[in-house]
């Protein structure tokens, strides 16, 4: 399997010090890679480095054979890495269809925009069904799906999802996760950050466990789930019921 994205020996952080300390991880093409780890392990920082919002102090970020560390977020976007943020980022007063079309703002060719829109409508029926409605009127899970649809407008090589499960009720969560799998089946490479570890790992071909800014463990989702240390440290036992 070819490697689409590789971070090697990355050090990065903010005013107060380094959050990522000699971090090395790779994302194979055509699969789902899930990053898990405790709060503060540096998951958000990894995403900021990949999207160009944070320039690593040391180390390399190689995407599709080219170094992208230090490029501007816009350049990285045009290279084919699109990120779906944790918070809801649709424009609430615009329609669902307008929101999705906006995802193609880097494209100049209107015909190409229309062509991609049709492809996306096949994968995300909601764009057709609710296309004329205000995006703000959709529920949280529906908005998430529209965000997925929007990010595909740039025909990205890598889709980065930051905690797509956040704030979703169980029924909606299932739909959203199925849609993530469907994107993978449609040939996208997906990098997923999840706090809902079991949901994330059950979906992922490859898993990376972060701890204090470096990789504690990497392997297939099943291997990581089966690792007793990891299960103990991060997956938690069942919450103790009240005495």
């Amino acid at each position, binding site marked *: 399997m070819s490697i689409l994205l590789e971070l090697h020996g990355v050090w990065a*952080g903010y*005013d*107060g*010090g*380094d*959050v990522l*300390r*000699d971090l090395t991880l790779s994302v194979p093409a055509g699969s789902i890679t899930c990053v898990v780890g*405790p709060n*503060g*392990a*540096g998951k958000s920082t990894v995403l900021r480095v990949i999207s160009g919002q944070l320039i690593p102090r040391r180390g390399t970020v190689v995407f599709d054979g080219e170094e992208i560390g230090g490029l501007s977020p816009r350049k990285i976007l045009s290279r084919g890495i699109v990120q779906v943020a944790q918070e809801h980022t649709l424009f609430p007063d615009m329609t669902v269809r307008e929101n999705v079309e906006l995802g193609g703002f880097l494209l100049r060719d209107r015909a190409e925009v229309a062509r991609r829109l049709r492809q996306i409508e096949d994968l995300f029926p909601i764009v057709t069904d609710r296309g004329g409605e205000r995006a703000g009127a959709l529920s949280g899970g529906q908005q998430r799906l529209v965000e997925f649809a929007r990010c595909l407008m740039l025909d990205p090589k890598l889709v980065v999802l930051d905690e797509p499960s956040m704030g979703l009720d169980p029924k909606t969560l299932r739909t959203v996760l199925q849609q993530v799998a469907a994107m993978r089946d449609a040939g996208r490479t997906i990098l997923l950050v999840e706090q809902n570890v079991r949901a994330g790992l059950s979906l992922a071909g490859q898993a990376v466990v972060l*701890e*204090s*800014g*470096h990789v504690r463990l990497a392997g297939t989702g099943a291997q990581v789930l089966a690792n007793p240390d990891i299960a103990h*440290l*991060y997956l938690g036992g069942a919450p103790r019921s009240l005495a």
Partner: protein
Amino acid sequence: MNDPLATPLWRGARVGTAGLALIAAVAFPFVFTNPAVTSVAMFTLLFVGSSSAWNLFSGYSGYMALGNAVFFGSGAYFLANVAKDLHLKGGIGIFALVPLAGLFAGLVGVPVGWLALRTRRHTFVVVTISIFFVFQLLAYNLHSLTNGSGGMQLPMPPWLADTYNNYFYAAALVVAVVAIALSWAVRRSRFGLDLLAIRDDEDRARGLGVRTERVKLAAFALTGFITGMCGAITAYYLGSIYPPFVFDALFDVTIALMAFLGGLGTVTGPVVGALLLEPMQQYLTLRFSNAGISLILFGCLFLLVIRFLPEGVVPSLARLLRHVLRTRGEPQAGPGDPPPYDSPADHSPAAREVPR
């Protein structure tokens, strides 16, 4: 998280710098005796005071007031009226009235603030500007209090020309130091924390029990107190005051600009901003005599600052310094060092006990 600027060494350096700056400020009129220079220095100190005062309310609370000349003018006219009504003679005693002028301006701030602080954000900005123009208009029209556009005279001090400025310089220095001290004390107090919380999320602060109305009004009045003293000293120095001079829209903008330039919401920001801008403004006005050119240059500088130092001089320099210090200290931070952030593994079971 270890801030490289929070070490005792750097803290000491900060205190040392402040001490040296104070000594330099006290020594200044003895070294530079040219009245043209001391006059610029005195105005600079008054702007240090006014800008620090502006920052104390607007910088900390995030409410961008653009009408602080209301306080400045109120202080100036208060002093002129008291001196006139009591038939006071010029002399050092007039300075004793300056704090009273400040108190009066602070009192003016209570109803003004009560009115303006019902609004937020851009509405607040517009309301403060409007109130400013109302006061300017009143100054033109309340003849019994202001003598309208005829202006008012203040008593003439009996001092010789070569030491004349020094009295005003001393008074301005006292006010500037008071302003900085107040702004420092507020920043470190509960009151200051409440203001900063209001800046970040006012409704949340209220939900947590902060009495937001009271806190904002108190800070607004405190700003009025300091600014009013600056207005009174200016009035005494000029000897005569007219509505457009002491209720000056340019003053409203300048003190805000100084705080922006130096660093909004920091104690030293407005000081640095005033030290940079006021001498320059005075120089440009002298050099080109045409105030228009200095305004244009002023505006260009502001744009440059926003473009290259968006947080202001002080925070930008601090950031740079931190970066340099950390990069220099880097070789010691190998991968084997303890991680800077907590990880669950770092917690002994004892540390996990439920605090009461």
